[in-house]
């Protein structure tokens, strides 16, 4: 809502400066979002007198002027023809900055010096077009007076961001009313007395309302014999100041009154209304109608239309029709002032994408009891500006008129909830200042009838808010609540989420956050099988762009895109993870599932480069190691790494699924070269995925800790050859299957292929640490045990000792 300082001042006589007013409004909940000083920066554009005017020696169309700015005589070259010596004009002096960032400088024009510029209305943005420079009435103001001061245009435009509940403030009077209430000042109202002709309105027009449920009130006045003409300057300037274009005297009045009273009005050319009748009804499905903006609209039965005896002439509350608009030849006017139900107007405006000043107000709710006041004021002003005669009386179809009911109100409740301690009288005075009718019964109970224009006040809590608001939020003391103790530990899910995130970050990984929505083919880029459930994504009905139109079912595509993007910026050593939800459709009517997942991608050098770094590239085991540390953190055992049925997006020879028992909890591997290509990634990437929800379920709540043995250890190494296809892990499993209490630890410490090892074989070296909890083991005991293990390896796995 745009309003100017001077306009508000017409209604309330406050003393605040524009800045103080802006602050006051903001603290009343009418947030001033911006302030614009009209004519600011134009102080160097002043009233001046043309003392002398002669022909420019070198140009036919230019003249040389000596201009008096009240201080000195200046030479100015001018191209306009519409003035003579002795005229009072507008001079932009050197240094003035005109709209459009046009700076006035001393210059030479065709060899003659010019110390300024004589301005047109267009150049000062006072009009859209102008034929020549401004010629002011002589003596309008002392020479040298800034032009905006001289023209009385000095004003401040306030742009107020209104919350949807304050529809009453979509009007100058509404805002003025709040100022008056806050400052305890009187609101100056215009007189709404009307001068009417002798003949009754009913003899000129008729109104029938078929849809009172959508249009509970429809009022109209009739004016005949008026003359459509341009509006007077004060009206044009007032509308221009708040950004409304002047059209003609009648339309401008309807706009002015809408801005002042918040009541949208519409003027019909009555001679163009068939039968001089207004019929309010819902449209027929498919009915067509051309609105003022020359657009053909197809209507539905939920749209309300204003019709004449034959056809629609306006889209109720939204926009008038081309077929009945005011034209230059119009002489008789039917002026409409009505109340339309917010939801209906909203629906129509939204469906047609037609948002107007009128629909904006009706959608938020107008004052049904202010309909006549605005109508009378507008009709009077039209007669004043366009002449003609107003018919006697107004048509007013208002069948369901009812008084507002009183709201029981407890001042102590207001104090209690706000946390203040005002005297009851003070509280009631606040409500009275807001034009509420406050009455106190004999038993002390208070009831309050809010003013008709405050449709947002319906309940006691609404009144309490008004008390807090008008008294001032800044007067409420900040206190700490006195409350019962609640003991709520973080849930296990939250605790583990934090632990895992910390672990990954401590492992050198950087967390990324991608959008939850992706392109529909994102899962396809992973080469997933046709029946893979990750193809079934939840679709958005109204996506912004196709690339963000479905909810992701896997985090991998987003992360891979991030990898590609970073590589494009030459960040080649990446360790990234994302720990966010995926969105899986629920069965039938069930809500979708939103499990938390973890996905990681590593690529490039393991430790980054530098003088002391081996600069080795990461590989499968770096990715696997990260999973292992997560599993270790959560104390999850019974894990197996399965290479059967590899994930489609991984290199089948360098990937595996991670199983806990039979359940898959994740996977890890080198990205499949084709998938790598699909995501335009230049270098090999190793990825891992973990199902966080399963990790939480499997994690142990209790860690069991054993005291370390106090006896010495002894280590023995075994080097052996085994066929390539035999996984090294089988060696460790085989050793552990001996289930000897004395085996403290088994570790593979070397894997070797190459010279001395036949093709198809690998050499594995294992170190076993023996130690007892009860005593020092003797050489013989260890040897016996070690020999047993060796035989077992040889017999069960057919390894060859080296």
């Amino acid at each position, binding site marked *: 809502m745009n309003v100017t300082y001077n306009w508000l001042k017409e209604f309330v006589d406050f003393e605040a400066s524009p800045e103080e007013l802006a602050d006051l409004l903001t603290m009343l*909940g009418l*947030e001033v979002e911006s302030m614009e000083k009209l004519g600011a920066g134009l102080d160097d554009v002043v009233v001046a007198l043309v003392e002398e005017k002669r022909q420019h020696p070198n140009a036919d169309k230019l003249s040389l002027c000596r201009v008096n700015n009240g201080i000195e005589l200046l030479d100015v070259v001018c191209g306009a023809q519409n003035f003579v010596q002795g005229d009072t004009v507008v001079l932009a002096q050197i240094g003035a900055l005109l709209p459009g960032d046009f700076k006035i400088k001393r210059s030479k024009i065709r060899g003659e010096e010019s110390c300024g510029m004589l301005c047109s209305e267009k150049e000062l943005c006072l009009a859209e077009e102008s034929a020549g420079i401004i010629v002011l009435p002589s003596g309008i103001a002392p020479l040298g007076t800034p032009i905006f001061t001289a023209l009385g245009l000095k004003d401040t435009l306030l742009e107020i961001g209104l919350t*949807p*509940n304050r529809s009453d403030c979509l009007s100058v009077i509404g805002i003025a009313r709040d100022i008056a209430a806050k400052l305890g000042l009187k609101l100056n109202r215009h007189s709404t007395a009307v001068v009417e002709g002798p003949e009754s309105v009913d003899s000129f027009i008729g109104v029938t309302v078929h849809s009172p449920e959508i249009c509970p009130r429809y009022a109209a006045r009739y004016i005949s014999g008026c003359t459509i003409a341009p509006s007077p300057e004060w009206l044009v300037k007032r509308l221009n100041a708040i950004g409304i274009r002047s059209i003609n005297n009648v339309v401008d009045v309807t706009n002015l009154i809408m801005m002042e009273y918040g009541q949208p009005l519409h003027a019909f050319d009555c001679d163009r209304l068939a039968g001089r009748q207004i019929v309010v009804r819902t449209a027929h499905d498919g009915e067509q109608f051309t609105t003022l903006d020359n657009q053909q609209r197809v209507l539905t039965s939920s749209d309300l239309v204003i019709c004449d005896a034959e056809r629609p002439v306006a889209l109720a509350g939204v926009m008038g029709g081309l077929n009945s608009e005011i034209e230059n030849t119009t002489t008789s006017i039917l002026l409409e002032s009505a109340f339309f139900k*917010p*939801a209906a107007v909203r629906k129509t405006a939204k469906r047609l994408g037609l948002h107007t000043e009128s629909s904006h107000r009706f*959608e938020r709710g107008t004052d049904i009891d202010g309909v006549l006041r605005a109508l009378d004021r507008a009709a009077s002003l039209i007669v004043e500006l366009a002449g003609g005669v107003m018919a006697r009386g107004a048509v007013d179809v208002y069948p369901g008129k009812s008084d507002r009911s009183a709201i029981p109100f407890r001042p102590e409740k207001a104090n*209690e*909830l*706000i*946390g*203040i301690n005002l005297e009851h009288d003070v509280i009631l005075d606040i409500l009275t200042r807001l034009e509420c009718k406050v009455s106190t019964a004999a038993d002390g109970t208070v009831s309050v009838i809010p003013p008709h224009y405050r449709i947002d006040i319906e309940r006691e*809590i609404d009144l*309490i*808010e008004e008390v*807090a*608001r008008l008294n001032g939020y*800044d007067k*409420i003391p900040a*206190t*700490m*609540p006195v*409350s*019962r*103790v*609640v003991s*709520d530990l*973080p849930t296990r899910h*939250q605790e583990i989420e934090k632990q895992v995130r910390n672990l*990954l*970050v*401590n*492992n050198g990984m*950087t*967390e*990324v*956050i*991608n*959008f*939850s929505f992706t392109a529909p083919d994102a899962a396809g880029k992973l080469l997933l099988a046709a029946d893979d459930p990750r193809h079934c994504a*939840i*679709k*958005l*009905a*109204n*996506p*912004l762009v196709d690339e963000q139109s479905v909810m992701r079912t896997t985090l991998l595509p987003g992360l891979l895109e991030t990898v590609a*993007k970073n590589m494009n*910026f030459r*960040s080649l050593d990446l*360790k990234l993870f994302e720990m966010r*939800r995926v*969105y899986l459709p629920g069965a039938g*009517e069930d*809500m*979708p599932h*939103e499990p938390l997942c973890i996905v990681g991608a590593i690529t490039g050098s393991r*430790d980054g480069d*530098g003088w002391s*770094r081996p600069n080795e590239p990461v590989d499968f085991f770096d990715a696997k190691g990260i999973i292992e540390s997560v599993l270790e953190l959560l104390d999850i055992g019974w894990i197996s790494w399965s290479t059967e049925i590899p994930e489609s997006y991984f290199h089948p020879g360098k990937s595996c699924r991670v199983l806990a028992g039979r359940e898959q909890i994740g996977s890890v591997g080198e990205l499949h070269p084709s998938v790598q290509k699909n995501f335009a990634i230049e270098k090999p990437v190793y990825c891992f995925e973990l199902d966080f929800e399963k990790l939480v379920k499997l994690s142990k709540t209790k860690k069991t800790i054993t005291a370390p043995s106090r006896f010495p250890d002894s280590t023995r190494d075994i080097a052996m050859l085994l066929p390539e296809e035999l996984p090294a892990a089988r060696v460790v499993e085989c050793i552990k299957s001996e289930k000897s209490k004395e085996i403290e630890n088994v570790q593979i410490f070397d894997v070797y292929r190459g010279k001395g090892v036949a093709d198809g074989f690998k050499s594995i070296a294992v170190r076993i640490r023996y130690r007892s909890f009860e005593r020092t083991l003797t050489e013989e005991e260890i040897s016996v045990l070690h020999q047993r293990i060796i035989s077992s390896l040889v017999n069960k796995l057919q390894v060859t000792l080296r």
Partner: protein
Amino acid sequence: MREKLEQLRDGALQAIAASSGVEQLQEIRVRLLGRKGELTALMKGLGSLAAEERPVVGQLVNTVRDDIEAALTAAIMAAEERVIVDRLSSERVDISLPGRHPLKGTKHPVSLVIEEICSIFAGLGFAVAEGPEIEHDWYNFEALNFPPEHPARDMQDTFFVENNLLLRTHTSPVQIRTMLKQKPPVRIIAPGTVYRCDSDATHSPMFHQIEGLMVDKCVTFGDLKGILTVFTNQLFGQKTGVRLRPSYFPFTEPSAEVDIACVICGGKGCRVCKNSGWLEILGAGMVDPEVYRHVQYDAENISGFAFGMGIERIAMLKYGISDMRLLFENDVRFLRQF
């Protein structure tokens, strides 16, 4: 015998004096004093001596051994000392070379801010609650007093999904889910991802909020002001000015916008605060009775407040980030700075 002993001693002392390394000295010890050493061999001759001579020679053997031992010990210590001195004088590193440290990982700034805010509120007794992002219209709007066709719905451009589901436009539905599950006292904080169909330099279609809710007996608007003052002071510094001004949300009444004194200019007015000196950081208010009605709380006997804030906005202010899109571009050159 005596002579042999003295010869042995003299020879030993000479050898010790002549040797330089620790290893050499250890060898001398073994050669002379070891189990199969020369002194041990000599001592085998003791038995053949006369009885009266034996104690005297035995005494001499001990003296010789002690002398050699003492000389050896002294020489070894000196040799070890020399080794240390040599090492210290010869070994040098170029300490100007950069140190070696494990690669640093970082949390996303959104995670960092969420963690920080949750921990401030944990200190005030607020537990963390969560809820679905794909939400029912009822939880996201109706139960929060946004009736269908209400203009307040325009404040939040919504992404819709089939079956009357939508992407939640705020974390406020968690209030409803929490109150339906438990009776007062309630004190929760709910961080989460939210969505609105809007995208430019200051709006992202996906962003994050933190919701707070406290319901108990006799909670006042002043308490809301108190809690938020403590919170903003902890997050932005002890002397950050806080201002509440009237506003409107369908699910709170009275409602407030909460401003802090501009952290960039300190309240003097700058581009970030649009010369107002204030930065809007959260919305808040007393829970509207209509909300209590939807969760079957008795509005007459309890009261409470709710507040919500945008995480990105706070991250941008805290870290001086001017474009919200940076937060979701995931450029590691940006992320690694946190």
